[in-house]
């Protein structure tokens, strides 16, 4: 196996080796050491739950210990009551802990994601949730069956892990409990790794990198975020259940700030986004405090950990595994080398026609876009004032107008980024005024914003694949579409290059390629020629003219030369209203249009 291949599978091979070694060692471990080491594995699992939601989906949740604690408490109550019936405790601990953690995480996630909270608001709300549980559980006392949840006194007598069924089955000894915990944690890790390397994980990565673009590709981003946070809650709940079985006791201190602080430390020490990192982090932090003799809560651990967190954030942002990976990568061939020999993009018109013909077969005929009395205001400013326009295929439509005319606002209303106060928007007669962005994309809308929106960490081919997969929901068909688009753009040589390594112009082309992968029936382009060279602009006008034969194309543009090259229908917007329409030569001769562009008084 080459070093390169080994690097690609490092997350599979090394954890597997470690897990097997730990299992082989477990019968020979000192029982107290095995007992302590079990807690490190559980904390690693808790760290993994944060890595899934923070490292992958980009949401720094400070509620992981809340899911963990709730998973522990609920699983504890279930096991105390039903464990004696079955003898085996795993059948209660695992499903109940996982389910409780997942449900609570999903409920909190639903509030955060569906309210579309800002990232700061989300993090602070999750922190508040933990603190709220901390203060509520201090005084909360209840009796659930034979389990006593005793507020500050905690909940005692949680049975340990017992595998045998039947009455009188006893809990495993420390070494075997350690082995069982390692098996469960390894299973959780490999399942999570598989999910994160699959399609779901790829789209979650996209959500982190550019959530707006992911939605513009037609993905229901909030649902992905919700499922991801539920997955994270399930892992945390599992960790909580195992923690309860390990310590046989739970108290509200599980919701404390000190406890919550540890989770991002595990993740940062090991390496954010690496999935295996949190286990390394938990081992290092746990091992260090074991060696210092303080235990996880006593002594000056808080002080040391606080300083460690500050130093990590300042100096070792990628953690141990991140740093090791970067060191290893330096000895591997640079995958982005091919980016350097990419020439200017030139559109293969024949290939483009072929792609568009296929798209028409799969996605049906072009669709009209129309707005009726669309009205949008921002506190007295009215950028979109009752605009009625119909766009249909054949010739490209260009929207022009002086700065502040409302072109971009109108486009955003059409896309769904802005909600109009009144009026309606229709795609081929279907009202979409209140339809979320991703559903409009399903109806055939394709959008290219002014800046190139690409997923910089993904390869060029993967960028196109993600776009095509959104429509086709079939991995191999999506790969075919992606390679056809790559060939049309002449970027085959760069398919394995990270998109961020491309030049600005190439990123624009890649973005256009992603929009085409959606087989859109209506395309909206916001200043596509911005930042392009003259040659590139000419290529782009050729592409837009071809597109317009197959679908409705609307272009917002400043560059008059580009608008002229489009040979299309031109609409002039002024103060949020339609000011004039026609082809570019008629409008150039129109004194009123010249007035608003040049600021002349009428008929000097």
């Amino acid at each position, binding site marked *: 196996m080459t070093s390169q291949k080994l690097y690609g599978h490092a997350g599979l091979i090394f954890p597997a080796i470690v897990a097997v070694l730990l299992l082989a060692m477990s019968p020979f471990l000192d029982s107290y050491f095995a007992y302590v080491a079990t807690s490190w594995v559980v904390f690693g699992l808790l760290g993994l739950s944060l890595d899934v939601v923070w490292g992958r989906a980009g949401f*720094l949740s400070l509620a992981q210990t809340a899911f963990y604690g709730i998973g522990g408490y609920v699983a504890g109550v279930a096991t105390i009551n039903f464990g004696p019936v079955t003898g085996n405790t795993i059948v209660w601990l695992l499903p109940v802990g996982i389910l409780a953690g997942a449900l609570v995480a999903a409920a909190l996630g639903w*509030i955060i994601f569906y309210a579309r909270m800002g990232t700061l608001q989300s993090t602070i*709300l999750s922190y*508040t949730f933990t*603190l709220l549980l901390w203060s509520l559980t201090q005084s909360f006392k209840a009796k659930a069956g034979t389990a006593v949840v005793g507020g500050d006194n905690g909940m005692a007598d949680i049975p340990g892990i017992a595998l045998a069924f039947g009455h009188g089955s006893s809990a495993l000894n420390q070494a075997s409990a350690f082995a069982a915990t390692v098996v469960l944690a390894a299973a959780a890790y490999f399942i999570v790794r598989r999910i994160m390397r699959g399609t779901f994980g790829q789209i979650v990565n996209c959500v982190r990198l550019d959530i707006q673009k992911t939605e513009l590709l037609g993905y229901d981003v909030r649902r992905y975020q919700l499922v991801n946070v539920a997955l994270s809650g399930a892992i945390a709940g599992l960790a909580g259940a195992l923690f309860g079985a390990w310590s046989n006791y739970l108290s509200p201190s599980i919701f404390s700030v000190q406890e919550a*602080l540890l989770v991002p430390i595990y993740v940062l020490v090991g390496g954010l986004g690496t999935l295996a990192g949190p286990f390394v982090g938990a081992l290092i932090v746990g091992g260090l405090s074991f060696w210092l003799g303080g235990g996880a809560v006593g002594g000056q651990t808080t002080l040391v*950990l606080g300083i460690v967190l500050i130093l990590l954030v300042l100096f070792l942002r990628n953690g141990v595994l991140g740093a090791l990976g970067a060191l290893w990568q330096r000895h591997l061939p640079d995958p982005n080398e091919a980016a350097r020999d990419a020439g200017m993009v030139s559109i293969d018109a024949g290939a483009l026609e072929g792609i568009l013909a296929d798209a028409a077969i799969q996605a049906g005929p072009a669709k009209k876009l129309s707005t009726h009395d669309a009205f949008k205001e921002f506190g007295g400013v009215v950028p979109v004032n009752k605009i009625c326009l119909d766009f249909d295929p054949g010739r490209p439509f260009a929207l022009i107008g002086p700065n502040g005319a409302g072109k971009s606002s109108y486009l955003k209303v059409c896309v769904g980024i802005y909600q109009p106060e009144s009026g309606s928007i229709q795609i081929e007669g279907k009202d979409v005024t209140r339809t979320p962005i991703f559903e409009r994309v399903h109806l055939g809308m394709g959008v290219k914003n002014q800046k190139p929106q690409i997923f910089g960490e993904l390869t060029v081919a993967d960028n196109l694949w993600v776009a095509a997969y959104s429509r086709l929901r079939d991995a191999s068909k999506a790969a075919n579409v992606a390679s056809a688009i790559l060939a049309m753009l002449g970027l085959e040589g760069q398919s394995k290059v990270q998109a961020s390594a491309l030049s600005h112009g190439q990123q624009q082309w890649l973005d256009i390629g992603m929009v085409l992968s959606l087989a859109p029936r209506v395309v909206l382009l916001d200043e596509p020629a911005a930042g392009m060279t003259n040659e590139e602009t000419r290529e782009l006008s050729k592409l837009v003219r071809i597109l317009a034969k197959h679908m409705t194309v609307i272009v917002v543009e400043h560059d008059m030369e580009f608008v002229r090259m489009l040979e299309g229908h031109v609409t002039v917007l002024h103060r949020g209203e339609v000011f004039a329409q026609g082809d570019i030569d008629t409008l150039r001769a129109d004194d009123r249009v010249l007035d608003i562009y040049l600021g002349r008084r009428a008929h000097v």
Partner: protein
Amino acid sequence: MGLDYLATVLLSALSSASILLIATIGLAVVFGLMGVINLAHGEFLMIGAYAALTATQHGVPFVLSIPIAVIVTVVIGAIVEMLIINRLYGRLFDTMLATWGLSMVFYQLAVLMFGTVTPGIGMPAYSLHIGRYSLAAYPLLMIFVAAAMMAFVYMLMIRTPYGRKARAAIQVPDMAQAIGIDSRKTNTMTFSIGCGLAGFAGAVLLPIVPATPAMGFAFVIKAFLAVVVAGPVALTGAAIAALGAGGGASVVASFFTSVVGDVFFFSITAALLWLYPQGISAQWRRKM
């Protein structure tokens, strides 16, 4: 229920909302002007409280211990900004994590230096009588202190060269740099002013909230929420959020229990975030 009872409830609600506002202003200044959430804000409050307490224990009159607390926190704030915050500029969540670590360090240091239980200082024994009810005067005084703090901050921002620079730096950061405003220096100033305001709050609230190492956690949860609910126009927004939600919670608490009041506070902020996911001031045109 008599009119005197109603007046009592409203006055004490206003006073507890003002107490929340006093604790929030420093956080709002730092967030509004630097875009930084200082999770160690509560610990700066605690440092101010301990500084004032230590000063009074050495015979300094309470009124004079307040400026001492401000000086101590301003200095510590400036050091923290230069050592940590400066290096994390533009990395919101890293700043949060670093200040979180800092809050634990301060907490543990306070435990080491002062122990977990410390005596409070007595509240000045004046009280106000409304009908059959009487209210302690000191908490009522906090209404005026909060108003004075707000006025002070507005004056600082509008009338001083520093304030003009700081406001320029948040409105158009690149332009501010281009005309020669040293944003690093301005940020150091802003952060230490925010910490000084926290220190002032800790000292002035000392007769009401005794100094303990953990007082920071308990106290600032609501302050964080007020600032987050406020959104980009942090100062005015936080004042409205603190007075509205804090006052409402206090009214509810006076009819039921303080736990119900807390639940009300959290629900009202969650509801506000649901309605205004970027904060209540996201669409406002004013900037302060």
